[in-house]
């Protein structure tokens, strides 16, 4: 009985996956990624030098755009959006450790610059 239900559910799961990414959707994601990269180029090559945008404004903009690209690659190309929520959490929650390291080392590097000057 239980093995039967397993098979049924496994099959349903496969069916969900098949509906995940159609060719049209793949190309949509491609154009989103290309578009974001073009925006980054426009900022770097034209907007920032022409209007003298300061780096503390431009750099966060790059990082936000990069995170958007990362979301599209992980969610659609790597298919995480269509997986079970448990798997998605198992992958995404540990990323908090990386954020922790970023906070710690940025703080530390501000201390290092004081030591050097």
């Amino acid at each position, binding site marked *: 009985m239980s093995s039967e239900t397993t098979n049924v559910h496994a099959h349903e799961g496969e069916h969900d996956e098949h509906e995940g990414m159609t*060719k049209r959707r793949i190309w949509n994601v491609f154009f989103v990624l290309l578009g974001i990269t073009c925006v980054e*180029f426009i900022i770097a090559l034209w907007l920032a030098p022409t209007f003298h945008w300061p780096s503390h404004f431009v750099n966060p903009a790059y990082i936000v755009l990069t995170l958007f690209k990362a979301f599209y690659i992980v969610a659609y190309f790597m298919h995480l959006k269509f997986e079970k929520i448990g798997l998605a959490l198992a992958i995404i929650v540990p990323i908090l450790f990386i954020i922790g390291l970023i906070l710690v*080392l940025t703080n530390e*590097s501000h201390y290092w610059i004081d030591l050097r000057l």
Partner: protein
Amino acid sequence: MSTTAAQQIDEIKTTPWSGGRSPFNVEYGKMMMWFFLLSDAFTFSTLLISYGALRFSAPVWPAPSLVFQSFPGLIESGAPLVFVGLMTFILIMSSVTMVLAVEAGHRNSKKEVVWWMIGTIIGGLMFLGCQAMEWTHLHSEGFWWGHIPDTKTMQEFFKEGVPLTQQAMSSHQFANLFFTITGFHGFHVFSGVIINIIITVNVLIGTYQKRGSYLMVEKVGLYWHFVDLVWVFVFTFFYLV
């Protein structure tokens, strides 16, 4: 009353975590690929975060728009971001062909899987070729692990008025970090190309057709997209910021 209680106890629980089935509903190898990629993400993060920390703590840093302003073999200077833009486009494009191979695998279309996989391999090789040209160009200027250009060349990479001693120190850090991080990423691309070739051969000899599913293509696809994902970050932090 006791019978209803017994019925409740005997009832088979069907929630995802009550046993008897895979709660994540993915095949073992695919889940392990995800966990490997998570650990690889940690490795790349530590490299990039160390780069960030060293760069934050440096009073000066070589300007990316001055260091990366050539298109090796075509334009010597004055074209910032053009060459790396091409590299980024090639890698995103090869990610698209990879996901198209996975899509063809769902339809069990062997011929389409093979063609998209070959496209992905070509994209990977083109990216590696571009990276080799980029490295050769920087090497010809004098950058290498532990090596920096002579003072005259080095001054071209900094905004005017930066003291020479500061230039030397941050140039050393820049050279070591650049070659280590892009080298580690390039090594991932290289292994990805090798794995893609193995999988393509398996598709050609009909291994997955016999097995009835192209799940291996999905697994190697996850790795390939991860390589693209890392490049997105390397691109931002080395070439834009």
